[in-house]
């Protein structure tokens, strides 16, 4: 039994674009319901909610002659921008802030935040500083560790580097990450 792990990992590390889809579908459905209501009211000879279908058509046909044209154009540009964002949203990969940890016979997915807090704890332990002075950010291919020593107490830079390298190596991430350790020259006032 070979599990479809490649597919699982792919699905767990990329956005399904579900929220956007549902929002768009709901908005379009509501707009159609509104238009349908106006049509029915027109058929029954009742006054419209906002505008009769005929008036809407006339307005659309006469759009270039209406004032202020600047506002109408601006509205169109805003609409076009929203459209452009949606097109980009559809095309971009939608990669989530997650990594795969390689492990035999399993698909293991870790949030970048979990990696960051784990690395931060390791650094804090090794350097003997409070965890608030070890800042770690994990992105797709990069880990940046910012160490702020407590003022007057030097930290062992080589030891920290080795610990970070070991910790990251133990995760065995896909895609692999490079790491940078920065030791701030100005220390934090002791706690």
């Amino acid at each position, binding site marked *: 039994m070979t599990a479809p792990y490649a597919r699982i990992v792919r699905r767990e590390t990329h956005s399904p674009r579900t929220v956007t889809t549902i929002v768009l579908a709901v908005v379009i459905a509501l707009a159609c319901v509104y238009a349908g209501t106006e049509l029915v009211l027109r058929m029954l000879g009742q006054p419209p909610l906002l505008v009769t279908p005929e008036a809407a058509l006339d307005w659309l046909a006469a759009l270039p002659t209406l004032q202020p044209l600047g506002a109408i154009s601006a509205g169109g540009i805003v609409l076009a921008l*929203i459209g452009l964002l949606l097109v980009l949203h559809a095309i971009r990969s939608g990669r989530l802030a997650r990594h795969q940890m390689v492990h035999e016979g399993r698909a293991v997915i870790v949030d970048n935040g979990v990696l960051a807090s784990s690395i931060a704890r390791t650094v804090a332990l090794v350097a003997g500083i409070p965890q608030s002075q070890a800042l770690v950010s994990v992105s797709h291919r990069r880990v940046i560790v910012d160490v702020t020593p407590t003022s007057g107490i030097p930290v062992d830079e080589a030891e920290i580097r080795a610990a970070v390298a070991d910790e990251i190596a133990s995760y065995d991430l896909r895609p692999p990450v490079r790491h940078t350790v920065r030791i701030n020259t100005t220390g934090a006032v002791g706690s």
Partner: protein
Amino acid sequence: MNDTNRALNRIFIFLVGLILLVVGAAVGALQFWPWWAARWEDAGRTTTSAVTDALKASPVPGADFSWWLLAALGALLIIVIVMVLIITNVGGGGSREIYREPIGKRGGASDRRLIDTTFAADALKHSLDKRPDLVGSTVGAFTVKRQPVLHVGVTPRQGTSPRLIMTEADTLINNLALVVGDAPATCLTIHSGLRAKLGRDQRVR
């Protein structure tokens, strides 16, 4: 890890975006491109008269509106139905069993051994919730490529090594495998949940 058709989601978003882009650009260009504004006006005039003629030419007997209005209503209804289909298409793909294996038809009427998801979920959740380094867990099962896959999601406390979590979860899943006969295909996700972020950092000095 549900059965949402992601390609369909993207195609839908792309089409809606494209329509908005084209319509928006057409309206936005009115102020800056007199030629285009004149074309729009011409087309508007012809369309309005054509629509008015068409509405007059096809009255519904005994009413003062046209068949075209009914047709438009039908078209709107179809769009609404398509939108509802798109919304309901999202999700799904849950599996009620985590493991199935053909066994011989000796005696039993069933020729498959099935492990119910709730059984595995209860067993795993029970063990996971006893771990002090986890603040939450979810267990479920999905069908991926016609194969049940056990999905275990855990939220560890801040600073817990994910490698450690993985080893622990591995042990539990292997224990489950001892009970059910074979290790089910498993996907483990380790989340940095809100609770882990808000929860007080237990610092030991």
